[in-house]
């Protein structure tokens, strides 16, 4: 059961490579989003030409990373594969999930398409379940406007409980605001309390019955609610992976979800 080293060595190899990059990063940011939301435009807009691509070790997925400077801090951006969901297991989705979960990014930016925000919110909600340090970038605001769609971003911010930045990445609109938001979350460590997804009663009950045990098992270092959900879903690999990381990372910084942050869910 504990032998899932291929996966963990994959991400560890990648993280090591990340650490050895010539520019020392003050923060590592994951960039997620559905395909065709202009995620790459956001990535290129933020990092300019300071980009590298590399194969995700152990997986046949190409990852790009890039750097930019903002307020004298070096920020490293990791461009995750475009995914519709974190629930399934395609190589792309796994990489996105593993990085958000085990890569300990200082923030995760989800890029959404303003012209079909409803569809994109599925992923946003799922990422918010994994990590509290989520920022939403609503891209293609101009295209939405042309289609007569207006998004109330401050309203969305209130409902979700995470920073929401409207943008037209193609024209570099909103990118400074996005950098500011990333700075607040990743450097200033401004706490975020996303509003959690609520499932139907029977699932919520089942989660409650599992969550305490899971929390003890994972030493409070992972999001126990989310881990309990995966167990209910029958996905034991995530938990074994988490235990694996606990052992491996004993000397390192606590991972994605700290105990304090996990309390947001209660």
């Amino acid at each position: 059961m504990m032998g899932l080293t291929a996966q963990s060595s994959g991400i560890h190899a990648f993280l090591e490579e990340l650490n050895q990059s010539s520019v020392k990063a003050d923060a590592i940011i994951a960039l997620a989003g559905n395909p065709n939301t202009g995620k790459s435009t956001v990535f290129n807009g933020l990092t300019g030409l300071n980009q590298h691509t590399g194969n995700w070790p152990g997986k046949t997925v190409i990852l790009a990373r890039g750097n930019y400077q903002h307020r004298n801090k070096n920020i490293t951006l990791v461009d995750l594969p475009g995914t519709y969901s974190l629930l399934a297991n395609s190589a792309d989705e796994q990489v996105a999930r593993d990085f958000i979960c085990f890569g300990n990014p200082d923030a995760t930016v989800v890029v959404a398409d303003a012209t079909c925000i409803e569809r994109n919110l599925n992923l946003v909600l799922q990422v918010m379940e994994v990590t509290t340090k989520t920022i939403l970038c609503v891209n293609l605001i101009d295209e939405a406007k042309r289609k007569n769609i207006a998004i109330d971003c401050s309203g969305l911010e209130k409902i979700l409980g995470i920073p929401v930045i409207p943008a037209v990445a193609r024209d570099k609109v909103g990118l400074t605001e996005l950098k500011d938001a990333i700075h607040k979350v990743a450097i200033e460590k401004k706490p975020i309390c996303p509003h959690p997804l609520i499932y139907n009663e029977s699932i919520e009950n089942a989660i409650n019955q599992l969550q305490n045990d899971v929390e003890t098992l994972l030493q409070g270092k992972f999001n126990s609610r989310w881990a309990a959900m995966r167990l209910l879903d029958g996905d034991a690999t995530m938990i074994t992976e988490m235990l694996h990381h606990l052992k491996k990372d004993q000397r390192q910084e606590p991972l994605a979800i700290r105990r304090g942050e996990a309390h947001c869910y209660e």
Partner: protein
Amino acid sequence: MNNGEIDFNQIMSKAQILRNQLGAVRDQVVKDIYQQAQEIAGKVVRGQNLKRDLDQKIDNVVTSKIFGFPLMIALLGLVFWLTISGANVPSEMIANVLFGFQDKLTELFRWAGAPAWLHGVLVLGMYRGLAWVVSVMLPPMAIFFPLFTFLEDLGYLPRVAFNLDKFFKKAGAHGKQVLTMCMGFGCNAAGIIACRIIESPRERMIAILTNNFVPCNGRFPTLIAMAAVFMGAFVSGYNSFAASGLVAVVVVLGVLITLSVSWLLSKTLLKGIPSTFTLELPPYRIPKVGSLLIRSVLDRTLFVLMRAVVVAAPAGAITWILANIHIGDLSIIGYLAGWLQGFGQLLGLDGFIILAFLLGLPANEIVVPILMMCYMSQGAMLELDSIDALRRLLINNGWTWLTALNMILFSLLHFPCATTLLTIRKETQSVKWTLLAALIPTGVAVLVCFLIAQIARALGLV
């Protein structure tokens, strides 16, 4: 550590019990997430998206039970018809220019006093192979790719996936396999890479093993040329409409065989239950003509053409050498073809055709040029500036309607090209599956051609 494991096992069994009580957790979770996304969107999105209603109306027709399939096949036929009938004229023009240049080259070699073998290898081998590849492949690709990219950009392909989804489910495969299949129309190697979008390793392997059953653009020119030959020579009243109809039928046959083999695999080597997925139909978008042309011409047409050219040049040279080195009375190619003749006959083909497919392993594009070179080295020299000339050459070499038909089928079904096989090796990390990916199609091709040949002969049709 042991404590951890015991705890873990306890929690696992507890979760198992809870899961059993709950039933389909995943479905419920997905439903809840979607519902909340919808609620939130309802609160923050202002303005009505009129386009969405229109999309819905179009989808009701395009994916309907009655119109979905006829529309799909009609569109497919239309694309092939535009390709075939549109490519004829430019093909002939390019061929005239290129083969005219061949005569100039020959004069140049003669004037320089170059030895005959050098002229043979470079002009008759390399250059002529290249000229055929360019003149026959370029026009259909220049028409087919923009049309296909148009359907892709328009958002029609996901609708095709939607229509075919239930058939793939029934075959024990994944609905997303349709999308990888569509990529395969461009290039099977690209189709294999596209299989990454399928989550379950089992269904992914099925998609990889069967991707080759849709003709890539390396094989389209062969299919199109053979369909034209078949219709022109052996069926009265040739027109491009009938030929494109035949190509459409062949493609549909490829899909049917994909389904059958997928079904067989999911019952034998790759047993399992198909997994569910949510297919989202993206909004229709009117493609931007400029970027469509640039992408399909640069990314696809020129890329594929370059690959064909790079492979065709050495293959043309090697084939010429093999065809012109004689041992006794017979060339090396003659020996090899003679050796394969019996096997070819069984399949309704001949030794040269089998040899051309074997020599064409580097790229499917060069199978027909190699075949022509083989035939022409046998003495029947012809100016090949049109499909008509090709037809005469083939008939002179003993072709019947059965040869043309089985050539089409063998081309559709046979082993993938070397690039595709290397890609499969890379993606599956397994020599065993790569071998299977070569053996399964070849087996199907041999079986189908054998049966057709035997039945046709038994009925006295040939």
